[in-house]
């Protein structure tokens, strides 16, 4: 099922925000808020994003194990906020799929949360994140995520949902995380298949988060720098 782009009174979001800005109402410097008299959420953009190169990843899942470790103190593929799926029997480049949270411009997961647990964190660069104290585990945020696999994870032990916070809340990481800090998956990846960028990728381009991070050096060690249009898995 394909989610359609959210409309705001007949306008797309970008146009809508321009109108808001022109009328002196802007969300870019503050937290998300409901537009009075509507059920529409207006939220400032995240200051950082993860992009990946699915043709470069070597499937070691170090990013997943490290992600889980810095957040939870334990290594688990099921608790990782980045998901690498692989099937060694498939042909390159379709043998690996990487799934990172998009920190969506108009995050459906934030919109869907009935208790404002899934929210925009203005202290940490406007990341879309989940307050575990508020989360009631209803999983509506997971259902709302338009990507497959879902970019949010349900933790059956805590019965809460979690998602990528760009390492803003990482009790087991020595370094400062979040936008402007360390992203563990980026730093741990042996081949540089994950990158942190500040510019928001195009929101309705299904290939925007899957970029080519290969260069001449990659070719020098025997591989290709060809661009591949790999499906990001939108449902």
């Amino acid at each position, binding site marked *: 099922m394909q989610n359609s782009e959210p409309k705001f009174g007949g306008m797309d979001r970008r146009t809508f925000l321009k109108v808001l800005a022109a009328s002196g109402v802007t969300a870019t410097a503050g937290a998300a808020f409901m537009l009075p008299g509507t059920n529409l959420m207006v939220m400032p953009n995240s200051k950082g994003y993860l992009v990946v190169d699915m*043709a*470069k*990843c*070597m*499937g*070691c*899942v*170090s990013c997943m*194990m*490290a992600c*889980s*470790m*810095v957040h*939870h*103190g*334990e*290594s*688990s*593929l*099921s608790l990782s906020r980045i*998901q690498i*799926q692989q*099937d*060694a*029997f*498939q*042909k*390159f*480049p379709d*043998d*690996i*799929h990487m*799934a990172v949270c998009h920190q969506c411009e108009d995050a459906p997961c934030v919109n869907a949360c009935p208790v404002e647990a899934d929210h925009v964190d203005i202290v940490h660069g406007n990341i879309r994140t989940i307050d575990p104290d508020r989360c009631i585990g209803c999983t509506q945020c997971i259902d709302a995520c338009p990507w*497959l*696999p*879902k970019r949010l*994870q*349900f*933790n*059956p032990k805590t*019965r809460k949902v979690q998602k990528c916070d760009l390492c803003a809340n990482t009790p*087991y*990481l*020595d370094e400062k995380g979040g936008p402007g800090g360390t992203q*563990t998956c980026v*730093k*741990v990846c*042996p*081949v*540089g298949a994950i990158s942190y960028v500040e510019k928001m990728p195009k929101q309705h381009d299904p290939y925007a988060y899957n970029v080519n991070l290969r*260069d001449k*050096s*990659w*070719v*020098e*060690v*025997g*591989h*290709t720098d060809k661009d591949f249009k790999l499906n990001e*898995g939108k449902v």
Partner: protein
Amino acid sequence: MSDITNRGYAGKILHLKLSTLEYEVIPTEKYVEWGGGNGMGTALYWDFCEDKTIQDGRDEKNVVVIATSPLCGTATPSAGGRCEIVGTACGLYPESFFSRSNIGGRLSSMMKYAGWDAIVISGKAPKPVWVEIQNSLVRYHSAEALWGKDAHETQLRLFGILDRKNEGWGWQPLPGKGAGDSGYTTQIPAIAAISQAGERLQTMAGILHDAGNISGQGGFGAVWGSKNLKAISVLGTGAVKAADPAALIRARFKVKERYAPDVQKPDLLAWSFLSYPKPIAFAGDYDQSRRSACVGCVMGCRQRFSTGVGNQVKCQASAWYLAYIKKYAKKHPEEIDLNNEKQIVEISNYAADLCNRYALNTYLFQHALPWLEGLWHRGLLGKGKQVPSELDFDKLGSKAFVKEFCEAFAFRKDIGALFGDGFVHGVIKLGLEEDYKNGTLDFPYWGIQEHGYDPRAEVEWGYASILTDRDVNSHEFNQLYWNISIYTLMGLKPRISAEKLVHLIAEKLKPYVDGPECMDFSEENIYSDAVLNLTRWYIHYNRFWKNSALFCDLRWANLFHSRGDDAGNEGATGDPEVGEQVYWNAVTGENISIVDGLKRGYRVIVLQNAIWALQGRHRDKVHFADFIYEKPFEKGEFPFYMWTVRDKEGKWRYGDIMHRKLDREKFEDFKTRYYLAEGLDPKTGWPTEETLKKLKLDFAIDELKEHGKLPESNAS
């Protein structure tokens, strides 16, 4: 929840009792003292194999253990995905005994996530079965429909069966949404399977996981086949807890910064395996591919191809057929273009892929095939000949030939039937024992193939192979040979002088050695106590850090390092910030040193010596094939074999250590001193009571005594 589950262990071991199709859960606690992998597997074998005198792994009484380590399933560099398989092997000569093999990929990490530190397999199923493990759920299934399938097809069929909801790439609840200890996963199961070769008890049959991770040595595929065990599938949604998560991540970051290959600035002449920036493939580059890694690896030595053929092939397997392809191409340019690297790689991958499908040990072919080709040219192999065969060796090098060749071994027909119970056993039955003795067949130890590192030159490899149980396949020092030989071939000046290198390595080997003399591999020094102590370090490292802690052989140990700068050239091994013990301590909460780990390795090898003693091992059987003592080593990968040597003036240099043979008497004396140093009886090679007590292996004493295999003291 047991405390050990907070420090790297899952806390449970699964015992599959195949004869009754039951299982039991064993607490891991008792086995934690062994670390994991090889040590834990050996201890479990000791406890669960009631008759340790068996000399063929295909005996129903055999017990096989698949063991992980606390590091499996964590981001410990190049240790997160290795898995150890132990049990009595098959196909060795003069008889088989307890041995080991190792497998990469996702199997061990998935076992940990499912909540299992090891799987003990005993008995024999009444009919073919496969085992499904999903977290704590364990189920036996009939494998009648899988019997006769190769190891690839078996896994693909099981993927289909296990994807019950057919949700493909999405999150799947396991085993029921939100119930009990279940969780969710996006992953596919990790499956280990045997092929038709294992079903036919072919002794060169391995166990395959994913496309190309094979447990090759030891014939464990045949062992599974003898137990009617076709496959084990594991899927887990749990976690591995670390005692100090931040320390683990800190060290992982640091090792990348200091030692792992830099893909932005690839150093193609990097010296140590930990730093090598390319996949390890010998057939050539094939650009439409990706690098592929086992769980947690910092480098990735395998590849997956746009053809899908040869996925995860690496190293020797990538090229076991290569020379024949090139030779054939010269004669048949219309069929194979010698200048077309892509075509050559594709055929080479095809050959490797066949071996993976049939889970065959390609290393055996590396030296068996040239010998078979020689028989053909000598007129001894062919229709109605001394070695009867329908294979047409004039087509050796073609795709058609390799298919027929592999099928012969997989289906145990033609020459595959002649050698099915062990290669050397077959050679002797065919009246060709002289070829084995004189080295025409290059099988120097235990009736198995030489690895490419001849014992007459690279003595530590040879010594460790004959003093343990198999081709030791442990590259700690061997990377020195590769690098210096390649530098020599290219006419380059080595980045590190011989003088500096021997001191760097000797420093890592303390307190086993007290100086660089151990690195003098000149003919005069190879029987010295210094080389003996290097060999002891090597075996102990192999038994604990490599195969119990499960650091990958092709990444660790890291005894020296060079990125072409002057960063000191010290390797990561034992380093206070990024050494093996740093990761071990971060995960387990222990505070051990690299040497503490070596002591554990020593304990493991002594227990294994106890098992070998029960299986009939005696020092008289511990010797190389005759040719190692009688003929000089003349033919290797290169026209020379470069290593560190010291000249008569005491100056260190890189020199050629080829063109020599071993001295039988000197090696026997070396053995005596080795046994004494290890606390083994020099007359028999068996562990003494004194040593067993000293190492707290008292539990082995009664059984050894009962079988008349217990010498009294080290001085006997």
